[in-house]
């Protein structure tokens, strides 16, 4: 789960990581009022769940009220990577002596937490890592030690970011605090880009990015309350509520599949035979008929959908349960598009018997089903 920069800044303050003050604004007048309180120059920063805000024009340095009003109005008019800007922050502009990059995340292949640092800030770290890997410093830490890093570990790592020992010492304290924040809040990412040494010799986080592990939200109600519903994908939230996993795409062949890997393979097969998938949809393992109805409802909301391909390989999922769900869906949505079904596995005979005499077209294999669906109106 992503949160906004201003929320991440608040978390940083809670953990003693130095950040410049900020005020949140929802309208240009509010931005001007905040700027007057701080004194110019100030930075205006769009608050959206997306990287690359600067490149998209979502950040501006302003020097007076008039400029603040104009620039704030401009930023509020932006849509950055699909997210309309509804909030921005106003924060005093800093004088930067040196910029660095610092983050902590989980390294899948090392199966450890890893701090990543670079003595250049404001960079796209993936690009730097690819082009000049020697500039990247890494510190792998077993997760149990993350909240109790030794000062030596922190300092030797921080020295890769800042050559000046006074700056490195401050950065080392920040590394330790990031470790605690990461563990205590079950984060998937804590990132500061840039971490700066300012003209007065203070090391400060000029940006703050925090993401939480979705699987751990059950034990962090305080984090859940930071969720910005307007920035979330409505379809995905609705699907989650129904116990489904759903992602809308742009094609015309809707699919309904049990299991994420098979759902992806079904989309790939549709594409392979010349069709275009309209969505990713995993109805999950335990197949109660209600989920199938919910899946139909979400699929049929998309006017691009010309045909539905249902691909079920029953294991825990029982084919008769799926068939019952389809029967209720046919009653609920009588005028829907053609449906192709491929039903194999646990209780397949019972499932197929239930669907006899309906308007569904049956396929023996996924490939046959995908080809039939494409023929029935889904050709890309």
């Amino acid at each position, binding site marked *: 789960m992503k949160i906004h920069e201003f929320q991440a800044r608040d978390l940083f303050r809670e953990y003693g990581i130095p950040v410049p003050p900020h005020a949140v604004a929802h309208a240009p007048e509010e931005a001007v009022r905040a700027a007057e309180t701080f004194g110019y120059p100030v930075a205006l920063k769009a608050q959206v769940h997306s990287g690359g805000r600067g490149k998209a024009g979502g950040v501006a340095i302003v020097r007076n009220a008039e400029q603040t009003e104009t620039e704030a109005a401009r930023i509020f008019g932006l849509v950055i990577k699909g997210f309309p800007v509804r909030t921005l922050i106003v924060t005093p502009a800093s004088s930067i002596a040196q910029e660095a990059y610092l983050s902590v995340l*989980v390294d*899948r*292949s090392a*199966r*450890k*937490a890893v701090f990543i640092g670079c003595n250049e800030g404001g960079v796209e770290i*993936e690009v730097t890592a690819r082009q000049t890997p020697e500039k990247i410093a890494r510190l792998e830490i*077993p*997760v*149990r030690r993350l909240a109790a890093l030794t000062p030596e570990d922190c300092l030797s790592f921080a020295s890769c970011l800042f050559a000046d020992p006074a700056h490195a010492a401050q950065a080392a304290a920040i590394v330790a605090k990031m470790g605690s924040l990461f*563990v205590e809040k*079950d984060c*998937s990412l804590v990132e500061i880009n840039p971490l700066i040494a300012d003209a007065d010799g203070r090391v400060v986080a000029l940006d703050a990015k925090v993401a939480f*592990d*979705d*699987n*751990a939200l*059950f*034990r962090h109600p305080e984090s859940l309350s930071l969720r910005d519903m307007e920035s979330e994908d409505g379809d995905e939230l609705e699907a989650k509520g129904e116990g489904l*996993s759903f*992602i809308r*795409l742009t094609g015309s062949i809707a699919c309904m*599949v*049990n*299991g*994420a*890997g*098979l*759902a*992806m*393979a079904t*989309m*790939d*097969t*549709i*594409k*392979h035979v010349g069709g275009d*998938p309209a969505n*990713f949809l*995993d109805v999950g*393992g335990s197949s109660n008929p209600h989920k199938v109805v919910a899946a139909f409802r979400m699929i049929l909301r998309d006017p691009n959908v010309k045909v539905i391909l249902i691909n079920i*390989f*029953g*294991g*825990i*999922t029982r084919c008769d349960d799926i068939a019952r769900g389809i029967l209720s869906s046919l009653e609920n949505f009588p005028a829907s598009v053609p449906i192709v079904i491929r039903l*194999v*596995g*646990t209780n397949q005979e019972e499932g197929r018997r239930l669907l006899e005499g309906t308007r569904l077209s049956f396929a023996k*294999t*996924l*490939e046959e089903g995908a080809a039939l669906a494409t023929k029935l109106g889904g050709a890309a």
Partner: protein
Amino acid sequence: MSVLIDANARVLVQGITGRDGSFHTQQMIDYGTRIVGGVTPGKGGQTVCGAPVFNTMREAVVATGADVSVMYVPAPFARNAMLDAAPSGIRLLVAITEGIPTLDALEAYEELVTHGVRLLGPNCPGLITPGACKVGIMPGFIHAPGRIGVISRSGTLTYEIVKELTDAGYGQSTCIGIGGDPIIGSSFLDLLPLFQADPDTDAVVMVGEIGGNDEVVAAAYVQAHMTKPVVGFMAGLTAPPGRRMGHAGAIVGGEDDTAAAKTARLEAAGIPVAKLISDVVRLLRARGVEPSR
């Protein structure tokens, strides 16, 4: 011979008194697996499907001589169950549970490794040596004993591929679901050497998907160390970047973890990758692997 489990495996079920745990215990017993007991804290002394229930893993191992545990414990309690299993004396823990917090999985992994216990999963369907032993949730009837090893990040997609193999006369030595989470205890790289060393395995099918670089690391190993043919499948060619495709670990984060990029890396390492499920059998045949049943 086979990989990790055979007819002699003595299996405990963690979370045996739960709905999923008791259901799959019966399924495993029906398949012929030797379920020697179960563990649910506070429910010691009960019996489920004829198996004695214990309060702790250590008690259960001492009483039953179990060497494998399969875990169906709900995600919020999975950490404690895994930490309980670590020093118990088992050699393999199969974690079926989906939705375990990443840091819990990492911590448990570290503890299990310290005690020399191999972790499979979490968020996996388990593993099966057809005709001998099933430890997990896969439908037994699609499998057949034979000489093809299968390693996969997915559940139902694996069943699909296994059925295709069985229908074409290719039985399986052992099929292993490694799980769809970002942090898993056993990767392709950890398991390929076991199949290479197994005299009853002729070839391996590797079923990968978007996200992470496990498949790419494994491909380098295959190229350098494996003499047995390996055939691949890669799900998610049509997956949009930055979106989590059901599995917590199935997300395209950059240029290197797309299905297309991984397919290219596998093929460069001499591993042909099937575009369609039916291609898997064709590719095995093309590599000179004969049906074994």
